[in-house]
């Protein structure tokens, strides 16, 4: 019941995202048919293309057609070079998601390592401050400049064929991980310190439960729920960071596609990026909701 409710809620959000992109790009002052054909095209050509694209129909009909197309995963073709949008966006998303996956691993290692002992927590406390304060621009540029000068792996070949591509990916992934790493580690450490002061930990200590078991089995399991919640809240910011990191390291992912589509006013491409991004957000959130209800059974009841 809980999951059904959540699914309905997220579906309404998805509909909102589709409506947003529809309104945004179909009420543009400039005419899409005119953009495709260029300023020198004849008026009759523009009119016939408008009919072909369904632009002469009333707006609500256009929206239903649009919705129908999107459920069939057909986002149309790029205004600029006629590539199918869905294929293009999916290909780029694969690269961006690989980057995100790499940095998720880095985050996981750092945050779990950071709670290990009191000293580590103290060090992590100051490191987190530094990580949160470093804009992606700065850390990315610093690393990019150093890589250009000293590293043999200074470019990405576009596909994951050689081991060098994977090694290269560690650097942008690390830059992307910095900010969420600081935030998430801070949340986990605060939560851990709160829990370690509570009565049942004192009791467990008195019973002589080993320190490591207390830390990882008793405290961590309770601290993990706000951590997961913060994780899912960070996801959109994560993608914002990924766009910038990709441009800095010239990784041909969604970020580079976004910047090119903006420059070329390629609206179908932008629509595709927005909707696919929304879809990913909603699917991951549903996943997180499932994880919550598995980790903490109390959530289902409330």
């Amino acid at each position, binding site marked *: 019941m809980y999951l059904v409710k959540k699914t309905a809620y997220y579906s309404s959000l998805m509909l909102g995202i589709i409506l947003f992109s529809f309104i945004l790009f179909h009420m543009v002052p400039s005419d899409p048919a005119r953009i495709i054909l260029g300023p020198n095209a004849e008026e009759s050509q523009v009119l016939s293309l408008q009919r072909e694209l369904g632009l002469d129909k009333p707006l609500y009909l256009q929206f239903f057609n649009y919705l129908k197309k999107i459920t069939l995963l057909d986002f149309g073709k790029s205004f600029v070079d006629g590539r199918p949008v869905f294929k293009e966006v999916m290909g780029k998303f694969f690269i961006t998601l690989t980057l995100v996956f790499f940095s998720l691993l880095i985050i996981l290692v750092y945050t779990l390592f950071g709670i290990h002992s009191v000293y580590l927590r103290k060090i992590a406390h100051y490191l987190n401050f530094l990580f949160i304060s470093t804009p992606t*621009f700065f850390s990315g540029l610093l690393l990019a*400049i150093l890589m250009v000068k000293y590293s043999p792996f200074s470019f990405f070949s576009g596909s994951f064929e050689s081991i060098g591509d994977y090694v290269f990916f560690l650097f942008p992934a690390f830059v992307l991980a910095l900010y969420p790493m600081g935030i998430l580690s801070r949340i986990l450490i605060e939560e851990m310190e709160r829990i370690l002061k509570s009565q049942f930990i004192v009791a467990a200590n008195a019973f002589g439960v080993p320190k490591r078991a207390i830390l990882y089995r008793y405290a961590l399991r309770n601290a993990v729920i706000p951590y997961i919640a913060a994780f899912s809240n960070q996801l959109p910011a994560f993608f914002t960071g990924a766009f910038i990191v990709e441009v800095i390291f010239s990784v041909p992912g969604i970020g580079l596609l976004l910047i090119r589509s903006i420059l070329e006013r390629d609206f179908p491409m932008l629509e595709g990026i927005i909707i696919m*991004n929304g879809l990913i957000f*909603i699917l991951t959130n549903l996943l997180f909701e499932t994880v919550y209800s598995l980790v903490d059974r109390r959530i289902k009841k409330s």
Partner: protein
Amino acid sequence: MSFILKRNVSRPIFFLFILFSSTFVIPLLPLQDPLNIALDERLLPPSSEHPFGTDELGRDVLSRTVSGFATTVKVSIFALLSSLAIGIPLGGLAGYFYKTWVDGIFNWTVSFIFSLPFLLIMASIMSIMKPGIFKVYLILTFIMWVNPARIVRAEVIRTKNLDYVVATRAFGASEAYTLAYAILPCCIESAFIFSVSYLPEIIGLEAGLSFLGLGVQPPYPGLGKMIFDGLSYIYSAWWLSFFPAMILFVLVLVVNGFNFLYKKG
């Protein structure tokens, strides 16, 4: 407006004021004109004459960085204050009508705005218009009001059933009066205190928009745009993008440092 005089609110406001007034000192500094093109001084490395070097058109990177910094700070602070002005009443309404359709719409809107990366929403809105710095400010406000609104909503829900509010109502105050004069003044404070903690995010987004070419338009310098342009010279002239990024880092570090110290004591 007596809440401004309270000690814990006056410090963030004072901090914002200092930061804001620093942008008015900058034009008075003895720097070169950031728009002055000197083609015989292209891509010079940092020296005593040009401490941050010169760019591909021979313009002084130091003065460009500094003036880009001023723009970023101004836009960010204006956006912060306007987002407070919008977010506080909306959050107050949502909290007051907790669990009714007003609150439902509010929550849906907030999670809608949070469901896409901010930069993507902003970039797509900006891409259909002619970019400009005023629109950057409008869109930053449009996105950022959700932060204070959420805080105020939570505070209002906590406050609205306290005894003194019930007493106000019992004396015959109207609903609007109760909300505006009894509840909101107690809830605004935390919104103001938290406001500085998401200033770094606003700064980052402003730089991000400028980075995508949707912020300050050339020839006027914007930090993000300078970083982006410098990327094509990263092999030969690292100083083009390094120094704007460093200034951004220092700015965020200062704001976060203030937050850190402020929360501590």
